C-alpha cells in the first residue's frame, strides 16, 4: 500500500506557511478525528475502490445552478461525485467545481463547532462552546456583546431591529421563515440585489417570464454580457457549445473581454462596458425601420408597439449613432440585426448576472422587446415559457408583531422588492444613520457580504455597528470574523434539503439527500433553525407580551397557552417534522407514492420518467420525448410590453431610452474596473477549495498588453489598485483580451479571514474597490462603474 500524504500532514505543511493568529480559533483548525458513520478521508483525494458502494443522489451546492449527481460513499467517506443522468436541467454533467465539492465537506478549515466571540470583532478570537451555550449566547449575550433579549427589550419588541441575510440555496427559505415569519423582522437582504434582480424584473415586466432559452434548437444567438463557458448555467452551457463553431447555432458574443465564450463565437464584439442598451436600441432601429419584425406576433401580443416604434425612430437610435457609443461598427450592427430577424429561431440570450450599469433594467426590457420582435417566444428554438412542476406550498403559522416596524430601504429606489431589499441601500442607510429606527442585530447565513457587496469597508462598518452578529455557515468567511456567535452548518453532502422543482421546457423535481452524516459537531440548517427557535420562543414571546397591547388583549381573551400555541409564537413549530419527512409528504401529496420511491432512488422525478427517460448514446439522454417537451404552452403570461405606462408613474422610463448620463468616462491614466467569473471558481468560499486552488490559485489583474508594456508591467508583477473607496494589491496579467482603458479581476479572491488558510490574503477582492453605486429601479448594486488607478509595487 503506497504511503499517502495524510490530510493532517498536508495541513500542517500548509499551516506552517501561513500566519496563524494566536487566536483560540487557531487551535480548532486542526482536524478532529471522529470515527463514526462519517469519517475524514486519510488523503485529500481518495481513489475509488472496485467494490460496490452506496450511490446517494445529491444536488450540488457549490454554485447556484443546481446540478444533480450521485455521491459515491465508501466506508463513510465520499470518494467521488458523479453526474446524475436523470435530471434534465444538468443533463448528466458536473463541472470542475461540482467535482471538487468533496473538498468543501472535507475542508480542514471548516467551522466544526459552535463558537462564541471572546476577542474583538475581526480579530478571530473565539471560544468553542456547546450548541446550547451558543443559542443562549444569542439570547442573553455575553460580556462582549448584547443578546437578543436585551436588544428587543430596549427596542420595545420592534422585531425589525433585527436584520438578516442569506445567500442562495435550498435552505434559504427556511431561514426566511425563521427570521421573517417567526421572529418577525422585515429587514431582509440577500444576493438578489447584488445579482440578477434587474434581469428578472425587466423580463417579467416585458414578456411575462424570464423563460428558458432553447439553445438546442435555436439557430442564431446573440449572447451579450453572459459568459456561459466560464459562468456555467445548465442546460444552456451544454446546449450552446455543442452547436457553436459552425455547427448549427451561429453565435454572436458581446463582451468587453475576450472570454472563453468569445473563443467559441462566430463573431465577437468588444462592446464598450455598459453600452449594450445602445446596441440593442440600434438593432431595434434596424428591425423597425426595415420592417423585419414578426407583425402577426406583435399584433397578437404587443402592448404599445406604435409608441415604441415612434420612440426608437424619432430618437434616431441608428447603428451609426450606436457605433460611437458601443465601439461596435454600424455595419456590424446592421448585419447582426438583419441576420437575427431573418433567422428561423433567433435568441437574444437573456443572461443572468450582476448588474453592471445603471441602465440594466432598461437594457433587459430592450432585449426582451427585441426578442419579441422576432416572434420567437413560446416556441421551439425560442424563449420557452414552459410549465414548471408545482410542489404544494407549506403553511406557516406566522405570529403578528404589532411593534415591528416597516422597511425603510427605499431611498432613491423606484420599486421596493416584496421580499428582500437592496443590500447596498439598506447597509448605507444604517451606516449613515438614516434608518428611522436602529438596526442592531444581524443574522447571516451562507452569505459573505464583505466579499460580495461593493465597498467592503462600509460592510465592515455596518457589521461593527451591530450589537449582535450571528453567522451560520460552513467555512470561516470574511464576514464570519465579525460574528459574535457562529453556528457551524453541515455542508451540502451532509444534509437532506427541501425538495425543489426546476425547469420549464423539461421540468423535474429533485431532491438532495444527505450522503454522509454531518461531520464534527455541525448540524443541518433546518436542525439549527428548529433548535434556535426552541430556545428563543418563550423568552421572545414574553417580550412581545410586555410591549404588544393587542397580544395582551388576546392573551386575556383566549389564555396565554392557546395564544402562544395557536398564533404561531411557538417559533419551532415550523420544523416539527424533519426535512426528509416533509419532502415525502409534499411529493406524495402532489405526485403519489410511486413518485416518492423514484425520487428517493434517482434523486429526480417527473411524470412518466420511467417511460420517457432513455439513453441516446454514451453521453446523452432523452428526458422527455420531443412531443412532450413544453415548447409551446397555453398561457396568459405571454405578452410583449413595449410601453410600460405604469413605470412612468414611479419615475422609471416606460420605454427603454438611452441617456447621455449612461456614458461612463474613464479619465486619462485611470482604468475602468470590470469583474466577472471563472469556470473553476465560484466565489469567496471556493478560494479555500484545495482542488480548485490547484487550477486557479489566485486572481490576477487583466491589463491590456500594450499598456502594460508601456508601463513596464510584466506578468506576475505586483500592482496596487486603488479606487475612491479602497485599495488592493494583485498580480498583473498583461493580455490582449481586454481594452486599453479597462482592467479586470475575477470576483471573490482576497480573503480577509485568517482561518481560511488557503484563501487568506490570496489575490484581491473586487468588493474592496467597487464604489457603492446602485441602479435606480431596485437599488441593485452596479459593478462596472468604478475607475481605478494602478501602480507597480
Amino acid at each position: 500500500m503506497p504511503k499517502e500524504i495524510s490530510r493532517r500532514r498536508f495541513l500542517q505543511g500548509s499551516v506552517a506557511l501561513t500566519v496563524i493568529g494566536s487566536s483560540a480559533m487557531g487551535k480548532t483548525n486542526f482536524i478532529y478525528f471522529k470515527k463514526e458513520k462519517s469519517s475524514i478521508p486519510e488523503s485529500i483525494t481518495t481513489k475509488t475502490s472496485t467494490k460496490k458502494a452506496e450511490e446517494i443522489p445529491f444536488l450540488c451546492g457549490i454554485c447556484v445552478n443546481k446540478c444533480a449527481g450521485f455521491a459515491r460513499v465508501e466506508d463513510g467517506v465520499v470518494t467521488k461525485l458523479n453526474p446524475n443522468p436523470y435530471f434534465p436541467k444538468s443533463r448528466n454533467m458536473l463541472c470542475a467545481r461540482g467535482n471538487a465539492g468533496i473538498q468543501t465537506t472535507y475542508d480542514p478549515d471548516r467551522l466544526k463547532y459552535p463558537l462564541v466571540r471572546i476577542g474583538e470583532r475581526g480579530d478571530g478570537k473565539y471560544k468553542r462552546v456547546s450548541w446550547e451555550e451558543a443559542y443562549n449566547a444569542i439570547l442573553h449575550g455575553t460580556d462582549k456583546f448584547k443578546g437578543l433579549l436585551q436588544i428587543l427589550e430596549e427596542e420595545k419588541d420592534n422585531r425589525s431591529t433585527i436584520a438578516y441575510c442569506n445567500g442562495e440555496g435550498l435552505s434559504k427559505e427556511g431561514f426566511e421563515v425563521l427570521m421573517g415569519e417567526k421572529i418577525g423582522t422585515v429587514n431582509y437582504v440577500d444576493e438578489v440585489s447584488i445579482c440578477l434582480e434587474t434581469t428578472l424584473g425587466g423580463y417579467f415586466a416585458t414578456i411575462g417570464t424570464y423563460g428558458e432559452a432553447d439553445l438546442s434548437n435555436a439557430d442564431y444567438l446573440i449572447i451579450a454580457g453572459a459568459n456561459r463557458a466560464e459562468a456555467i448555467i445548465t442546460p444552456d452551457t451544454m446546449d450552446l457549445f455543442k452547436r457553436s463553431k459552425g455547427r448549427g447555432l451561429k453565435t454572436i458574443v458581446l463582451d468587453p473581454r475576450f472570454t472563453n465564450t468569445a473563443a467559441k463565437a462566430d463573431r465577437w464584439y468588444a462592446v464598450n462596458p455598459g453600452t449594450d442598451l445602445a446596441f440593442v436600441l440600434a438593432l431595434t432601429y434596424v428591425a423597425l425601420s426595415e420592417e423585419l419584425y414578426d407583425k402577426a406576433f406583435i399584433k397578437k401580443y404587443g402592448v404599445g408597439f406604435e409608441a415604441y416604434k415612434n420612440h426608437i425612430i424619432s430618437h434616431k437610435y441608428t447603428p451609426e449613432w450606436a457605433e460611437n457609443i458601443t465601439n461596435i461598427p454600424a455595419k456590424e450592427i446592421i448585419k447582426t440585426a438583419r441576420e437575427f430577424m431573418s433567422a428561423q429561431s433567433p435568441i437574444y440570450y437573456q443572461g443572468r448576472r450582476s448588474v453592471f450599469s445603471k441602465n440594466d433594467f432598461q437594457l433587459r426590457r430592450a432585449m426582451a422587446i427585441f426578442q419579441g420582435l422576432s416572434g420567437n417566444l413560446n416556441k421551439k428554438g425560442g424563449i420557452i415559457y414552459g410549465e414548471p412542476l408545482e410542489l404544494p406550498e407549506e403553511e406557516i403559522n406566522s405570529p403578528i408583531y404589532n411593534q415591528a416596524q416597516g422597511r425603510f430601504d427605499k431611498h432613491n429606489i423606484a420599486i421596493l422588492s416584496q421580499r428582500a431589499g437592496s443590500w447596498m441601500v439598506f447597509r448605507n442607510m444604517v451606516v449613515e444613520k438614516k434608518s428611522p429606527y436602529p438596526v442592531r442585530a444581524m443574522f447571516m447565513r451562507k452569505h459573505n457580504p464583505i466579499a460580495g457587496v461593493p465597498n467592503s469597508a462600509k460592510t465592515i462598518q455596518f457589521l461593527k455597528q451591530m450589537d449582535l452578529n450571528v453567522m451560520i455557515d460552513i467555512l470561516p468567511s470574511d464576514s464570519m470574523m465579525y460574528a459574535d456567535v457562529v453556528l457551524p452548518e453541515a455542508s451540502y453532502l451532509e444534509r437532506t434539503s427541501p425538495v425543489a422543482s426546476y425547469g420549464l421546457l423539461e421540468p423535474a423535481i429533485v431532491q438532495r439527500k444527505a450522503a454522509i452524516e454531518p461531520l464534527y459537531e455541525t448540524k443541518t440548517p433546518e436542525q439549527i433553525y428548529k433548535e434556535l427557535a426552541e430556545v428563543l420562543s418563550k423568552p421572545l414571546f414574553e417580550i412581545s407580551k410586555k410591549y404588544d397591547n393587542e397580544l395582551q388583549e388576546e392573551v386575556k381573551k383566549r389564555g396565554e397557552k392557546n395564544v402562544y400555541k395557536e398564533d404561531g409564537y411557538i417559533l419551532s413549530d415550523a420544523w416539527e417534522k424533519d426535512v426528509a419527512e416533509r419532502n415525502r409528504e409534499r411529493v406524495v401529496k402532489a405526485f403519489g407514492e410511486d413518485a416518492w420511491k423514484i425520487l428517493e432512488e434517482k434523486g429526480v422525478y417527473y411524470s412518466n420518467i420511467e417511460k420517457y427517460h432513455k439513453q441516446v448514446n454514451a453521453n446523452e439522454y432523452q428526458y422527455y420525448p420531443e412531443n412532450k417537451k413544453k415548447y409551446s404552452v397555453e398561457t396568459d403570461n405571454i405578452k410583449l410590453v413595449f410601453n410600460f405606462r405604469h413605470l412612468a408613474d414611479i419615475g422609471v422610463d416606460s420605454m427603454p431610452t438611452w441617456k447621455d448620463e449612461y456614458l461612463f468616462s474613464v479619465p486619462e491614466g485611470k482604468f475602468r474596473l470590470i469583474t466577472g467569473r471563472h469556470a473553476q471558481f465560484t466565489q469567496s468560499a471556493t478560494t479555500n477549495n484545495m482542488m480548485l486552488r490547484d487550477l486557479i490559485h489566485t486572481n490576477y489583474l487583466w491589463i491590456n498588453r500594450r499598456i502594460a508594456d508601456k508601463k513596464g508591467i510584466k506578468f506576475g508583477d505586483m500592482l496596487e489598485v486603488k479606487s475612491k473607496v479602497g485599495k488592493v494589491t494583485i498580480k498583473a496579467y498583461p493580455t490582449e483580451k481586454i481594452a486599453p482603458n479597462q482592467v479586470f479581476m475575477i470576483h471573490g479572491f482576497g480573503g480577509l479571514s485568517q482561518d481560511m488558510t488557503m484563501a487568506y490574503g490570496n489575490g484581491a477582492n473586487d468588493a474592496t474597490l467597487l464604489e457603492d453605486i446602485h441602479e435606480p429601479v431596485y437599488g441593485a448594486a452596479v459593478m462596472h462603474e468604478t475607475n481605478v488607478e494602478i501602480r507597480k509595487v
Partner: protein
Amino acid sequence: MKIGPLSIPLKEDFSLKSILGFEKTPVNMLLALSVIAMLVMLVVGIGNYLIHSHHAYNVTRQHPWGLLIAVYIFFVVSSTGFCIVGSLGDVFGFKDFTMISKRAIFGSIVTILAGFTVIAFEIGHPVTMMIYNVLTPGLTSAIWWMGTLYGLYLTFMIIEFYFLLNNDMKKAKIFGLTGLLVGLAAHSNLGSVFGFLNARTISQGVYYPTYFILTAFITGIFLSFIIMGFRYKLNFNEKTKKLLEGLAKIQGLLISILIFFMTWKLLTDMYGGVPTRSDVAHHIIHTAPFWAEVILVMIIPLLVILKDFGKSPVLMFWASLSGMVGIFFMRYNLVHDTQVKPLQMMKIREYQLSPEWIHYFPSASEIMISLGGLGLCILLYYVGTRAFNLDEEEGH
C-alpha cells in the same frame, strides 16, 4: 594481500598512516580539505534526499532529468575514456602508452564507482532496479542495455586491473579487450538513451551514440594529463613527456574531429528546418553553458596543442583541467538541451505564460551529491595511489 585464491599486491607501507602521510603543502592541504568538504556535502545531500526524496531536487515533470544524470554521464564517460587510454598500451600494444595503463584502468574503476554512487540517488528505486532488470528485462530500452553493460564492464575492468597488478599481461589483455568492447557498447548505449528519444528531435538520431565514443576518448586524454600531472607534480621525465606528447597529438586530432562533428550537427540542426530541432538549436547557441563547452573543451586545448604540436605538457595539464570543466558543461548541456523544449506547448492554466523554454537550475542537494561524487572519486583514486603501485613495473 591474499583473499582466497586471489593475491593483491598492495604497497608494503600501505596503512592509514601512509594515506594521511602526504606532504603537507598548501596545495595538498587545500585539496585534502576540499575532498573532506565534498564528502560532507555528499552525506548532507544524501541525507536531504532520504528525507525529502525527489523534492530535494529541482527536477520537474517537464525536466525530469537534472544535474545528477549529467554528473553520472560525466563520470561514466570519464571511465570509458580512461579505459580507452589504458587499452592503448596493454590491449593494442602501443608501447609508449603502456606506462599509463594501470593508472588509467584504475581511474576507470573509481570514476564509474563515483558514477554509480551518484545515479543510485537519482534512480528512485535502485534496489527495485536490480531485481526487475533481471526478472522483467526491458530489452528495447537503451537504459537497460546501458546499465547492464556497464555492470559487466565494471567487472571486466576490475579483473583486468587485478591481472595488471599481478603483471599477468596476457590475461589483462584478454579482459582489457573484452572490457573495452563492453565499455564501448555500454557507452554508445548511453548515447542511444538520447538518440532513441523520438519526442526530442534535438537529440534523436545516430549522433550521440557515436559522439559519445569520441568525447570519451577526448575525456580520457584530458584525464591522463591530469593524473600524470599529479603523479609527477608537473615535473615530467622524458618518457612521460613522450607519452604526453603522443596523447596531445591524438587529442589535437580528436578535438578537430569533434569540432567538425559539432559544426555539422549544429548547422544541420539550425538550418535543416526540422521543427523542435532548429528552434532548439538556435536557442542553444545563445546560452552561456554552450559557449563554456566550446571554449573550455575545444578552443583552449586546441590552441595549446597547436602552439607546438603538444610539446608543452605542463600547459596541457592546465588545458586539460579547462577541458574537464568544459566536459562537465558538455554533459550538462546534453541533458538540459534535450529537455529544454516543452513537449506540451499550450497553457494549461489561465494565469501562466505560454510555455517557452524550460528553466532548470540544480538544487543544493543535487549540487552537493554531485560534488560529493567528485570527492569520492578523488578519495578513491588517492587511496589507490597509496595502496597500489600504479606506475609501470620496471622491466616491462
